């Protein structure tokens, strides 16, 4: 959009010069802004994907098959990809495990999403999104992956949608020669994402599957593993699921001195809880202040000596907008709450926003 975005290839190479020439043709926008209209998935474009299919998995989970753009660099089973989806016109970013087997980079990938109650993005993806929709993507990331070669004895401890990174590993075939146990919790048999596939794997002898149906049997107590999988501490273990399960697992493995054998995946390590006022960090200025819930962030910054951009100071000119790296702020005009995590790309008007919990502003 803007002519100020530095381009890595704006070098002295022939391509670089050609690109700069194209920029003089299209200024003030960039050539890519025009190309995006016709070929959003082309090589060199910001990474995006097109949803090619939506397959229901359970009553509240669905698999999205996504054709990534040509800039996609592939993934390792167990890694996640961040998806930027427009829900009610607002771009929202969420991370989902890639569940497809790594193939050629031009092949579609898949992610499986479980709708959580009041989940803005998950409900949209499971119930409303249609094939053909363009979504924003990031390259695959994450170190919740199998080492090479794969360990000979493995335990997967999962619950709910925590099965998704593990499904990617199981499908990849990397565990073909290993002794694998999967302990998976879900409310009932019908709620087990990939239930049929996992049971078939168990029947074929590829894994030992322990299904826990929590509606009937209650939540799994990690101590029960002593009986369910007596050698679990000798196995390399990958755990993914709700925070409660992961915390309990970490305590269990640490207490027995085997913490290095446990690998966990937490999609949202920071839980944003909104409060009234909070600690505001101005990241580039390395300034941190305590700001009350009624003080605009602009005032808080200025009082602390931060060179804050400002304008009308009444919420109309947008001259004070700054990126909210993470945290929660409240609009002083209507009390509306805005929360952000790194990468969400949320920007706020500092003159009419106050801290609603700890927050970081990029300036």
């Amino acid at each position: 959009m803007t002519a100020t975005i530095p381009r890595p290839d704006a070098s002295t190479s022939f391509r670089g010069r050609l690109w700069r020439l194209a920029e003089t043709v299209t200024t003030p926008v960039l050539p890519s802004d025009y190309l995006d209209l016709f070929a959003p998935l082309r090589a060199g474009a910001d990474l995006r994907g097109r949803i090619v299919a939506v397959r229901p998995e359970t009553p509240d989970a669905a698999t999205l098959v996504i054709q990534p753009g040509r800039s996609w660099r592939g993934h390792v089973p167990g890694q996640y990809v961040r998806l930027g989806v427009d829900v009610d016109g607002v771009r929202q970013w969420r991370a989902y495990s890639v569940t497809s087997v790594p193939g050629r980079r031009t092949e579609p990938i898949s992610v499986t999403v479980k709708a959580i109650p009041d989940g803005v993005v998950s409900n949209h993806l499971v119930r409303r999104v249609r094939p053909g929709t363009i979504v924003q993507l990031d390259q695959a990331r994450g170190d919740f992956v199998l080492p090479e070669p794969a360990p000979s004895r493995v335990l997967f401890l999962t619950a709910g949608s925590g099965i998704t990174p593990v499904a990617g590993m199981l499908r990849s075939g990397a565990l073909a020669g290993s002794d694998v146990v999967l302990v998976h919790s879900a409310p009932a048999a019908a709620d087990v994402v990939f239930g049929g596939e996992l049971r078939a794997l168990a029947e074929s002898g590829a894994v030992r599957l322990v299904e826990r149906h929590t509606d009937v049997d209650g939540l799994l107590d990690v101590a029960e593993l002593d009986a369910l999988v007596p050698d679990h501490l000798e196995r390399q273990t990958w755990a993914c699921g709700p925070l409660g399960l992961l915390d309990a697992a970490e305590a269990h493995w640490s207490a027995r001195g085997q913490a290095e054998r446990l690998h966990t995946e937490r999609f949202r390590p920071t839980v944003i809880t909104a409060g009234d006022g909070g600690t505001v960090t101005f990241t580039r200025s390395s300034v941190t202040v305590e700001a009350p819930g009624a003080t605009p962030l602009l005032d808080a910054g200025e009082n602390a000596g931060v060179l804050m951009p400002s304008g009308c100071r009444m919420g109309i000119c947008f001259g004070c907008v700054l990126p909210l790296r993470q945290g929660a702020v409240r609009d002083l005009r209507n009390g509306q709450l805005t929360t952000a995590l790194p990468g969400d790309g949320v920007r706020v008007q500092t003159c009419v926003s106050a801290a609603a919990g700890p927050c970081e502003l990029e300036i």
Partner: protein
Amino acid sequence: MTVIQKKADNPIAHLSAEDIENLGRELDAIRERVIASRGERDAAYIRKVISTQRKLEVGSRVVLLFSLFPPAWIVGTAGLSVAKILENMEIGHNILHGQWDWMRDPKIHSTSWEWDHVSPADQWKHSHNELHHRFTNVIGKDNDLGYGIMRVDEDQPWHPAYLGQPFYNFVNACFFEYGIAAYDLELGKNLKHGRHKTPEFRARVRAVGRKIRRQVLKDYVVHPLLSGPSFFHTMAATFTANLIRNLWSHSVIMCGHFPEGVETFEKTSIEGETRGEWYVRQMLGSANISGNRLLHIMTGNLSFQIEHHLFPDLPSNRYQEIAPEIRALFDRYGLKYTTGSMPRQVFSAWRKVFRLALPNRRRPAAPIAPIDDTVDRPVPTLATAGV
């Protein structure tokens, strides 16, 4: 037009302080309702306008590669004029207002957008969003009143130089984007006060210089060169398109605050102004243009100038929707909703430019403060009311 506080028939005299605050609360409620209902439909609207504008611009520029042929010249020039108008009005102006920031799309955001205009977006945002929208129609504070070169209000002091203002206004209309760039730089004031040597001002001048260079290179060198034998025809076509865009946006802007019926305010009147009072000033300081959907889009919905000034950051496609409700509010509170057809409002604004080129017919009772916001003097009372 005379500052509202001095009018014999002050149009807000019948409103109590409580009425004004109630009015403010009603307007806040309308704003909240629109904000709560912003969604997919609005996002689809702006993306559609942007994509249509880009396709129209590419199409017109391609046609202009063959501008040697008169039909291609006419079609290409017409298309490019419309594309440039859309880009400045419905897209650029509104995105730079932050109307679409809520979508969190970094490509359609007030902090990242740059527009097809010689004034860099950040400088324009300062003079327009921060000064004009905050100090709307306050004599001595809102430089949009006459852009510092014209006298558009009886309360602005007359000087023989204003005799030429119909001519300046016409020249400004033809090269409006350069006028805006000079205005955003506050060129006159900065030169007069010897501030043109400060590093800050020089940096801003350089930024404008870079922007002008890029714009001129594109419109008058690169595209003509790409046209080969049609070089001069394409150059003439882009010049014409820029001229049409300038005349159009100048006319729309004149209709917003200059026609008869729009009120002005004295500087002291906004000290300690409440939210409700700010709203009232926006209501009486702006004028709408009536017309069809095409007109509204081509004016960037500034045909709903009143609604825009009340809520500068609401998506432009919503102004039309709330207009009937706003108008009903005017009626209920006994305020005048100024509106008229485009020809009528343009005529009204131009008539004022001609009329105020001459001194006021009746002499003011007291000397008048100059329009200069570096000197903080109250505007003295005029004996005349609504000349």
